[in-house]
């Protein structure tokens, strides 16, 4: 029937004692970067504008440094570019450069006044895929905000903003690249007769400093006075998955079962089981449940009103179905005795809807709760770590930055013809912003003291969940930083699990399928 090696299990039981496999250990240190203060210390009284100011203040030095290095010797027609402190200081005809926040005015962006008007419409508005119609002046080859010199009356406009004011940007240069509201950039050019700033060149803050491997653990050990171990055991692999989409509806959970058995090392042949034993941690990047978000989206609300049902603002407790969380909890509790799990919430998970989403509460997991840290006495990372979204942690020495996909999905909506999610992720890294479009179109917490979404240190692995397909690349920075960017596909649709080797940071895929023909 088959060759010898893989037919081992297709034979009568032998008397050989099967070996018991042991899993590779996982070194894990979660970082509290995105934890919000609890209870009464979390205030919502502040304005969101403060976030923009804080972001600008944090990133302006970096971008100005890069810009001044780049444009110090720049000359056009004998004129060198001078630096302006404020956006409104630019003068007509003068070559200069200035740094500020990008703001994009887009016709299809969610607008609360329009929403109220639409409530009286009969038909629910279709969900927005992109905020830009992609129609502008200037011909078919260039579309959208970046087209026609940004004058697109039907399209969008790009502006540069800082504490002093706004400046409209134009120029063919803009059509070449990615810009979204909230990115901090430095532009060089001159003001033209219309009062618009014609852009000749543009710079971004680029990747921040990247800590060397094991820095978090070594730093902690040094602080505690312990000796810093030079020799670390070789790490295994990290399994990354996203979009489990447990819905409580039977009929689509077979893939989850296959995944479970594979990770536990019970299914497949001994060789694959050995491989599975080298997986030291499972990271679930969002959307473990489907439709469990407590707040209905704009589209759902519009649909509900249309049906003539009760319009429940917020949470309708009568319609709660415990089956999905129960199923998820059982699934996790079956895995936990063997493998530690890090769980990030996603858009459809039962936790806060604004970024940074807080960890899914232990109350949702009656069985898996035993593996979590007790709430009053957290001693080190929990075996089952329910963490924030976005989340920053150090696994096997590498710094991971993960999100459940909402920031990238939102950036996607800003770019009229770009389908390249890897590009967007790279751009986010170079802008040093985990969620650039927050708070404009992405709900977030009004940070007062500093924008938490600014990346202070460059991660080694940047993973984004709930993407349509698996993509990966390595992004390099000016100081030699290297970031492995991973777009994690939705498991429910693709059945793909990503295994990231922690020694080489090269990913591989394990795909689960059920052949259902005939």
């Amino acid at each position: 029937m088959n060759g010898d090696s893989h037919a081992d299990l297709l034979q009568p039981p032998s008397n050989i004692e099967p070996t018991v496999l042991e899993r590779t250990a996982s070194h894990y240190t979660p970082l509290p970067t995105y934890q919000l203060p609890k209870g009464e210390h979390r205030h919502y009284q502040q304005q969101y504008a403060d976030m923009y100011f804080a972001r600008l203040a944090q990133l302006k030095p970096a971008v100005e440094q890069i810009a001044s290095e780049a444009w110090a010797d720049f000359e056009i027609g004998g004129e060198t570019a001078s630096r302006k402190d404020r956006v409104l200081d630019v003068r007509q005809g003068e070559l200069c450069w200035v740094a500020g926040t990008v703001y994009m005015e887009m016709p299809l962006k969610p607008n609360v006044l329009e929403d109220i008007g639409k409530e009286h419409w009969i038909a629910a508005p279709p969900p927005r895929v992109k905020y830009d119609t992609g129609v502008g002046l200037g011909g078919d080859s260039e579309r959208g905000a970046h087209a026609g010199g940004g004058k697109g009356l039907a399209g969008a406009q790009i502006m540069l903003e800082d504490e002093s004011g706004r400046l409209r940007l134009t120029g063919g240069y803009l059509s070449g690249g990615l810009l979204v509201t909230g990115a901090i950039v430095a532009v060089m050019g001159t003001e033209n007769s219309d009062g618009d700033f014609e852009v000749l060149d543009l710079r971004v803050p680029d990747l921040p400093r990247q800590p060397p491997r094991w820095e978090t653990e070594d730093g902690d050990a040094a602080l505690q006075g312990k000796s810093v171990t030079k020799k670390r055991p070789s790490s295994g692999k990290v399994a990354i998955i996203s979009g489990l989409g447990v819905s409580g509806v039977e009929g689509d959970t077979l893939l989850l079962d296959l995944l479970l058995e594979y990770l536990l090392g019970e299914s497949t042949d001994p060789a694959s089981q050995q491989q599975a034993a080298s997986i030291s941690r499972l990271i679930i990047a969002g959307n473990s449940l489907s439709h469990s978000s407590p707040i209905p989206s704009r589209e759902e609300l519009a649909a509900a009103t249309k049906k003539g049902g009760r319009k429940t603002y917020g949470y309708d407790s009568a319609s709660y179905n415990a089956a999905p969380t129960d199923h998820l909890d059982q699934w996790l509790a079956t895995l936990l005795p063997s493998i530690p799990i890090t769980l990030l919430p996603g858009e459809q998970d039962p936790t806060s809807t604004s970024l940074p989403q807080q960890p899914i509460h232990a109350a949702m997991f009656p069985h898996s709760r035993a593996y979590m840290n007790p709430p009053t006495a957290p001693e080190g990372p929990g075996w089952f770590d329910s963490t924030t979204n976005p989340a920053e942690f150090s696994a096997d020495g590498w710094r991971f930055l993960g999100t459940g996909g909402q920031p990238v999905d939102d950036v996607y909506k800003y770019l009229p013809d770009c389908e390249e999610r890897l590009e967007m992720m790279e751009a986010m890294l170079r802008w040093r912003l985990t969620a650039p479009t927050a708070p404009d179109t992405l709900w977030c917490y009004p940070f007062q003291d500093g924008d938490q979404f600014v990346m202070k240190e460059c991660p080694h692995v940047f993973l984004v969940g709930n993407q349509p397909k698996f993509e990966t690349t390595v992004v390099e920075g000016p100081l030699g930083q290297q970031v492995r960017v991973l777009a994690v596909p939705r498991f429910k649709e693709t059945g793909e699990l990503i295994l990231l080797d922690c020694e080489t940071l090269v990913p591989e895929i394990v795909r689960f399928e059920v052949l259902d023909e005939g």
Partner: protein
Amino acid sequence: MAQDYTEWLAINVLNEQQLVSYRSLSRALKVHSNLAKQMLYDFHRKQNAKKPGTLHATYLITGIKRTERPATNGTHSQRDGEHTVMQSSPLLPSSSALKPDEHDDEEPNAVQTVMLVKQESLELAKSKFESITGIHIYSLQAKGLGDIQSLTECNRKIAVDYDLEDPLEAWKQYGTIQNPNVKRRTQRRQLPPPPAPVAKAAVAKAKPPIPTAKPTTLKKEASKDSQEAKPTSNASAKATTEPAKKPPTNKRQSSDIFKSFAKGKPKAKTEQESQGSAGSTPKAAPDDEPIAGFSDEEDADEGDADIIEEAPQAVDGKSKKEREAELQAMMEQEDEVMEDAAGAELEHAEADVDEGAIDKPDLQAEEPKETVQFENGRRRGRRRVMKKKTVKDEDGYLVTKEEATWESFSEDEPAPKRIKVPPTTSMSKSTTTAAGKKGAKPGGSNIMSFFSKK
């Protein structure tokens, strides 16, 4: 061993027509999963040799599928129809990885496939693979498998049937990958309490100023209660209660009502409750001196307790100190459980209800000792009664404290005594409630004491 599995499989698959996966077999016979897979194969082969077509199997194939284009590593050099927005170089000058020409250098990511197929499609599936790492039987069933999704039934049954096994100990034999670093809290497994009592508790909380003729909650609460001993008893005294004590106060009072309602609560409640009390215990430092008073008071309240927990032997003449010591011991015991839930989802409502549950068992023990000697149209005996005592607090506040004292009674005046005294076991539930409520009053508001002795 060889015979066991053949027999077991014959019974379950052929006779009972069940769906048996290698996992179900491994758990039933307590063998390693790989061994179970081999057993399944052997049985399948033998059975099919005897009577072909009686058994159907599903297989799990692991391997590398026939070349799929490694399309999934962001090669946008292949997107030629796309528009120049793709070029990131102008805006992201240091972008090196995304230049289209560099993509072809990246090696395709390794894709391993794990595929589940029915036996009819096995050959077809194998042809899709370029190289196969392993095949094994996933499950056996007597008839053909209609919906392959029904295989989830196997795992669900395992979860239900083997729920009581401790994974950390039992799963080693099944071949699950062991993890020596696993951290698990030792806590008695308990599921969240049903929502119904919570609703009731919420109602109860709406009537806070019910003076505590029946203060006590549980012995575990005793320490917490001790703090409230002084301020709690009256409405007037309440005014002096510090806000910090208010929530525990409310809890205690609501619990009094619940003691009457609560009946035969399961042990799970006890656990929840102990956690609830644990939460409040850190708030109030245990204070020894009024514990004595409270341990006595507990006994006075009695619902129609059906369960008798292992309450300490409460003898009539037992000294307060001894009882107090026992309470402390029991509290110590419960510590680990308390830690878990302390401060977490501490819901007052739940705690309230639970307090009621615990009280009854405790009181139950006390009750027999104090009730009537005989019933003969005339009840007599020693009984506990709440007497008020007004003392001056250190701050100069007048605090009225309720204390339980023994008194003897006889049935000459059954009705008024009923009203005044907290309910006894002999009464029905509704009466208990009514009497309980009324009994609750006298100690508290001065107005009601007007009605106490007629």
